């Protein structure tokens, strides 16, 4: 694999005495669509702000497009496209005015491309920003993030507040506009089912650290729910990668990562129970297991 476009190592950040990021490590391959997931308040936006140099890291290194986020702040802003969460734009401006205004900050602003984008994203040039629909609003924010033709684009929860149709439309533009042009997209969301169809890779942020990162389809293959039949006090001791344990009647449901033949045998041996079923999970269930799973090693049935 070539050099990752975004590389975060050991990133820490605190708001006052509250440590929000507790050693985040992340690599985003060039040209990929990367889904950055986590529940509300897990530190997604904070990570993005440090990555853009808008917040100062407590410790660790962030590199984006070969630049140091903390040292080359201006260069980062010029080379990266950024769409903030719930981006505020001046409502009294007309679409064409705000486009010109934002463009004036960027030396590399591509006016011809922007005109094409206005048509492609079906944005009314003469309308005032405050009269736009939510969907148009997010498309305008996307356009403003793309006008200087960045090779890396960071979208912070871009579909927040959009209805399902506008959301799908937005994702369509991400694929058609960005993936088609080999732009790397770093995309945060708290909706896994939304990320899955579009993301090559996903990372799950939980309590300020990355709980899991990998290729989207591999994540899906590696996590399984298995049902064991047994009774009594069951000790799962040394089994690694248990995400969730639940007793259901005389059965134990175990959600487990990196599931394999070897692990299957180890589980049967440790628990002295027979595996009666093996179930595939959808990504939402996998996400849930990582976020709120009960990681106990003992279960009473």
């Amino acid at each position, binding site marked *: 694999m070539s050099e990752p476009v975004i590389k975060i190592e050991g990133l820490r950040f605190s708001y006052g005495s509250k440590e929000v990021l507790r050693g985040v490590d992340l690599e985003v391959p060039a040209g990929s669509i990367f889904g950055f997931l986590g529940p509300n308040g897990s530190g997604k936006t904070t990570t993005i702000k440090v990555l853009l140099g808008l917040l100062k890291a407590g410790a660790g290194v962030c590199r984006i497009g070969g630049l140091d986020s903390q040292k080359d702040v201006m260069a980062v802003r010029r080379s990266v496209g950024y769409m903030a969460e719930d981006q505020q734009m001046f409502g009294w401006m007309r679409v064409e005015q705000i486009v010109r205004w934002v463009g004036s900050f960027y030396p590399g602003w591509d006016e011809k491309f922007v005109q094409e984008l206005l048509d492609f994203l079906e944005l009314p040039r003469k309308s005032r920003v405050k009269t736009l629909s939510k969907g148009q609003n997010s498309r305008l924010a996307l356009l403003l993030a793309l006008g200087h033709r960045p090779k890396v684009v960071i979208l912070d929860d871009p579909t927040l507040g959009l209805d399902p149709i506008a959301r799908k439309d937005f*994702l*369509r533009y991400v694929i058609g506009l960005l*993936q088609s042009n080999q732009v790397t997209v770093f995309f945060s969301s708290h909706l896994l089912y939304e990320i899955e*169809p579009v993301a090559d890779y996903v990372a799950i942020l939980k309590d300020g650290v990355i709980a899991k990162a990998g290729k989207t*389809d591999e994540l899906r293959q590696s996590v399984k729910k298995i049902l064991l039949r047994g009774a009594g006090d069951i000790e799962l001791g040394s089994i690694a990668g248990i995400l969730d344990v639940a007793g259901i009647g005389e059965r134990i449901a175990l959600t487990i990562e990196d599931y394999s033949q070897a692990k299957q045998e180890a589980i049967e041996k440790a628990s002295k129970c027979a595996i009666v079923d093996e179930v*595939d999970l*959808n990504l939402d269930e996998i996400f849930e297991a990582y976020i709120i799973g009960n990681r106990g090693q003992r279960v009473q049935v």
Partner: protein
Amino acid sequence: MEVLIIFIRIEPSSPVPIYRQIIDQIRYQIATGVLKEGDQVPSVRQLAGELAVNQNTILKVYNQLCAEKILKIERGSGTFVAAGKQNIPVAERKRIVAKLLREAAVQAIHLDVGLEQAKEQLEKEYEAIKLLKNKTGAR
């Protein structure tokens, strides 16, 4: 030549991976004759845009269907429905069907549907799809 629009539904809450869902639906449409040998399918980019699905996912779908000789890529002109199943060895074809039938058998046992009833049901489904194919074949 006219490029067909393929109707594909993605079920986000399904435990079946998205690429698998698309493969299954294209296979089904070829089996029922909605897609015929020689029909041109959309490009990777078009289908990705239409479904709002990552282009690499569609690429994976097309690559696998090409490896199975269900689709074929003709350089410069596009991707087409190939002759398909005839090119897969009999043993392999049987293996694919057996795998699916195993799932059906498991369900039948779970739901207490007898072997005879299950066979009957399979026959019905088989005939229904063949009928559908004959109908669409006459278009």
